[in-house]
């Protein structure tokens, strides 16, 4: 497990979240996305370019038929489709209040 100090025990990788999950991005951690198709630094840059930065709200809207993959995630007002293995790099904390 990466850097336990900044991640509360309630966080989970976005790649393991279910449809309907709502939360906030706590950290981007490339070590959790070993299966990703890109080297860590490049994956991190692409995730940020698509709006995955710490503090942004996320909601998992849809998932594919086979293995629940890929997923469609609402990131602070933009909908992004990605595979779960890359979403593993996004560490999220659930939010209680669905507004």
């Amino acid at each position: 497990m990466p850097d336990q100090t900044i991640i509360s025990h309630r966080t989970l990788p976005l790649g393991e979240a279910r449809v309907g999950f709502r939360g906030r991005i706590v950290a981007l951690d490339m070590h959790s996305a070993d299966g990703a198709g890109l080297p860590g630094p490049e994956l991190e840059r692409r995730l940020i370019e698509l709006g995955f930065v710490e503090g942004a709200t996320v909601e998992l809207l849809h998932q594919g038929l086979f293995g629940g993959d890929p997923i469609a995630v609402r990131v602070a007002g933009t909908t992004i489709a990605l595979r779960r293995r890359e979403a593993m790099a996004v560490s999220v904390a659930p939010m209680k209040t669905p507004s």
Partner: protein
Amino acid sequence: MNGDISVAPLPRAEQAPESTAAAAIVALVGNPNCGKTALFNALTGSRQKVANYPGVTVEKKTGQFTTPAGRAIKVVDLPGTYSLRARSPDEEITRDAVLGRLATEAVPDLIVCVADASNLRLALRLVLELKHVGRPLLLSLNMMDIARKRGIEIDIDRLSAALGIPVVSSVAVRRGGTDGLLAELDRALDRRLQAGVSDWHAPNASELRSGQREADRLLRLAVRSEGRLDPGTAKADALLLHPVAGLVILLAILFVMFQAVFAWARPLMDAISDGFTWFGALVGEAPLPEILRSFLKDGVIAGVGSVIVFLPQITILFFFILLLEDLGYMARAAFLMDKIMGGAGLHGRAFIPLLSSFACAIPGIMATRVIDDRRDRLTTILVAPLMTCSARIPVYTLIISAFIPDRQVWGVVGLQGLVMFGLYAVGIVGALVVSFIAKRLFWRTNAGEPFMLELPDYKIPQLKSLLLGVWARALAFLKRAGTTILSMMILIWVLASFPQPPDGATGPAINYSLAAMIGNAIAPLTHPLGFNWQINVALVPGMAAREVAVGALGTIYSIDGGESAADKIGQVLSGQWSLATALAFLAWYIFAPQCASTLAVIRRETGSWKWMAVTFFYMLALAYAAAFAVFQVASALGAG
């Protein structure tokens, strides 16, 4: 992120004379789906030109227009991007054009960043990055109508002050929707801003992160937004992205598309075909020397006619593809298909190039540029020609209507349409299998490029820009019919007419021609496929373009004594070919590398003869194997 560089109003009096005559150059930059194409169309109307950047195959769209103040402007539409940090050839062009690094292109006088006002977050980060380039910069908040309807309030003055650049709103799809932008263009160019110093470098993760933070701050400052998902999009996606229903609907859409291509085009095709027959007959009566009359009637008119007759089908197909794209459905289709494609070693994004390949492999192969990873891209290029392109439709249509009875199965579905669907399906399955094998054979790897894609809100497509797009494609097809295809038809006519039969010859004249000699020469090779020499002859010019084979068969058989319109060719064929031969011919056409232009594009896109050769030979082998299997099995079942 401080940077008033771009507005520093440095007068440029000394350099002014050259810029009064030459048009000012304006570059459009923006995220994908921001409405950049629509805006470009609104600004330039039909005064636009599509070409390629020298040395690369990235599409270069330029256009001209005059501002209300009478200033001539040359506008360049650059490929959509989230960052100047280029990850694909397309994005490299955007980066280099913005930075003024393209040797052949003039440096833009003004950069217009186009943003979707209803989805500003990522665009604002791009604006902040663009500011580092130091060129005069203007932000156009496009799709303002949608933003308003969704209750998103943007304080434009505040945003402009905070960014330190002019900001305007625009509605690309409404008359007068670009007035504000046009006025601001004049104002910005009047100021004769000079480019400041560029301190842009490819941002690293922490720079990107702080850029997005700053963008988020600006968003809070200037935008009051409900921040909600577009209700229409949410409702539609609940169904269209549903794991099961979504896939079923996608398949249904594809099926309807092909039924439409087959059925709707019929009346128009009949009219075109009748027209050419009538015209040919007219020329046939003309007081001309026999050989010239035959050349015009059987070579030129019949040849071109039997290709142009397929224009309605090609138009309908492109209409569907462009419609799905403008609706915002294409990205959804990629989402739904990603896992299936991924299982075959393809990237979800390959779905769009492959779907375009249904119209023509050439734009499809060129569209693979959206795939960043080289291996994923090569795999997609390799299999793109297996998608049933529109040039195969003439061949399929001809054979199907000649050999497959026109009746209904299960009460509702036409048998002919079903066979057509089957041919498409075999092409798709073939492509999946080939890419699966290629992935393991060539790359020996599983991990590919990540699938990351924005799913834009659904939009109501604009009929005008849809028709503009269809028109451009139809023109391209006609141009092909008018040049490559016409010259091939004439070549065929020559091959089929010379040498002329000796005096006192008894058989049809073509039996003595060069065409017959070629056909007979390769007969031993194609005999196991059930091909006769007429087919062999038609295959050779079919290399220029698949649909030429139809006209070629017409020429060969009409000189043989028949008529030339597609229907008549069909009648002749059904009398002369066995069902097994016809089916083998269809199987051949699913796989055969019968298109020189596709091969040329592969060579250009991959930059290597190797990949062109690989494509050619694997397709040839597949085609031979498929035709062989089909003919032998069908013959054994009694269809020989």
